[in-house]
């Protein structure tokens, strides 16, 4: 079975999935709204800064600035970029795949000359396009409340930021697809996804920029994919300093993302091949 779909297949899958997602636009709007955790965290951090505990946090990060070594505007900008990065790297393939496997919908996909995972890729990309206007509205609302946070990134940074969000989505999708593939062994593989939840929430940059964590934990976390899922793309988009004292360097971060991709793609294909051998087409 060919792995890469030709352009026409990709275009058709995306347009049809977009039509499907458009049917669920209200639900997607609510999902977009439910992703405001970074704004809540921004509020909490700001409150902490206001009552004087920021200095302590700042010293933990070794920045010595107003808050974790970041100006108030940079800090706000980081969280709005974390919101954007998350909106466009959200992955739900494990639940959809599990449902399809249990209900027998996976069987016809397996008998078509297209790797079934491409259908899920198309569905995610279509969902992202559907959520784009809602995400923009929410982000605009944040800028209205925090106008000092607004700044256009330099075109180069913007481009790299968009690229890193795309890479973050790809890594997240591959990671979750690895777990989804365990559906071939276990009927409830999605439960395993919960194992990733805690490191994802804390290390991805969703609740705080990586600077907020002790240096040892920062170094350790850079050996995992989590900081690249939200934190790194958010810092690129926000135009934050890279290299030197900062936890990420631009080239190092992008290289790490590519390395993760190079590791995850063959791992997924191998696990998939083994899993399909065990497939019993239950529910079909």
């Amino acid at each position: 079975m060919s792995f890469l779909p030709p352009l026409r297949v990709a275009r058709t899958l995306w347009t049809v999935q977009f039509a499907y997602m458009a049917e669920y636009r209200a639900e997607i709007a609510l999902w977009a709204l439910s992703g405001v955790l970074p704004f809540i965290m921004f509020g909490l951090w700001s409150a902490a800064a206001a009552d004087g505990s920021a200095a302590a946090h700042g010293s933990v990060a070794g920045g010595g600035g107003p808050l974790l070594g970041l100006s108030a505007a940079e800090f706000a900008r980081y969280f709005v970029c974390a919101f954007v990065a998350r909106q466009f790297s959200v992955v739900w393939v494990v639940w959809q795949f599990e449902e399809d496997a249990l209900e027998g919908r996976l069987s016809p996909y397996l008998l078509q000359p297209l790797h079934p995972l491409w259908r899920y890729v198309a569905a995610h990309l279509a969902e992202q396009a559907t959520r784009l206007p809602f995400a923009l509205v929410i982000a605009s609302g944040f800028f209205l409340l925090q106008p000092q946070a607004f700044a256009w990134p330099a075109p180069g940074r913007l481009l790299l930021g968009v690229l890193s969000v795309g890479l973050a989505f790809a890594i997240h999708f591959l990671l979750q697809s690895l777990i989804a593939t365990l559906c071939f062994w276990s009927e409830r593989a999605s439960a395993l996804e919960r194992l990733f939840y805690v490191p994802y929430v804390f290390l991805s940059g969703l609740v705080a920029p990586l600077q907020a964590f002790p240096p040892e934990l920062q170094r350790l976390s850079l050996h995992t994919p989590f900081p690249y899922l939200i934190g790194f793309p958010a810092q690129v988009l926000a135009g934050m300093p890279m290299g030197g004292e900062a936890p990420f360097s631009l080239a190092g971060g992008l290289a790490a993302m590519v390395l993760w991709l190079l590791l995850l793609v063959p791992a997924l294909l191998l696990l998939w091949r083994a899993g399909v051998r065990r497939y019993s087409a239950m529910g079909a």
Partner: protein
Amino acid sequence: MATVMARGLRKTFRVADKQPGLAGTLRHLVHRRWRSVQAVREVSFSIEAGEVVGFLGPNGAGKTTTLKLLSGLIHPSGGELAVAGHRPFRRERAFLESITLVMGQKQQLIWDLPPLDSLRVNAAVYGIPEREARRRIAELAEMLELGEELTRPVRKLSLGQRMKAELMAALLHRPQMLFLDEPTLGLDINAQARVRQFLADYNRRTGATVLLTSHYMADITALCPRVLLIHEGRLFHDGALAELSERLAPWRQVRLELARPLSAAQLAPYGEIEALEGCEVRLAIPRERLTATITRLLAQLPVLDLEVSDPPIEELIGRLFRQGSLEPAPR
């Protein structure tokens, strides 16, 4: 040359056994018990290109598992299998382009969109040029009597319309090998008849090989000159439906209308009494003694009318499955 060749085909599933209740649940958590279920056991057959073959058997007999093996959806546990010159479970592109599997109501259609959207996806996936795809869609729609339904969301279609749209999606790439699992399940009599007619037409027009399972004997009798009867994973019969009938029922039914009622004791010497109600009698008489017995009946009993028939195949198969003891077909 055979397009399907199965020799000693086997499929074993490992399933966990769990007793009911709290104790059973706790035992299941601590010490899970597994057992092997042999869904297909040493099944051998071959099918020529263009044949229409019916798989018969009760629920759990191994029919659907056999179709899944033939289509490459699952890996065999043993034996040899070749379909259209391929080993199905490798799922090579050329193989996938030459087959289709329709699993009853398990849809490949996207629920919230019109069937045309799913058909567009299939056309792209199978590399059918857009103009050609439109032509095929029109042709299939005509054969299946589908029109505006193709632009209505799938969820708004009736069961029969959905099944027909499902068939369109499954056949758009013009497969040469059709694996159909209960293609008429749940449809009303008219829709069943239309789907049957469509499958017969498709087979005639394209020369495709069709393998189907069905609980409706009408599907089998209308479409399948040859049947494979599977029970408990074993092949019990491979041949014409009429031969199966002969094998399952080496007797014929003789209905009598008598001038006056007779007792069971008076009728017993002529054959097995299947029904006795007043002057109406139904006897089962071994085929080899049929002529002699009818001569005796006419000579010795007050017979007003007599009719000889084969027992209905549904009844025979139903009886067979209820008895549950079958001897596998000699190979």
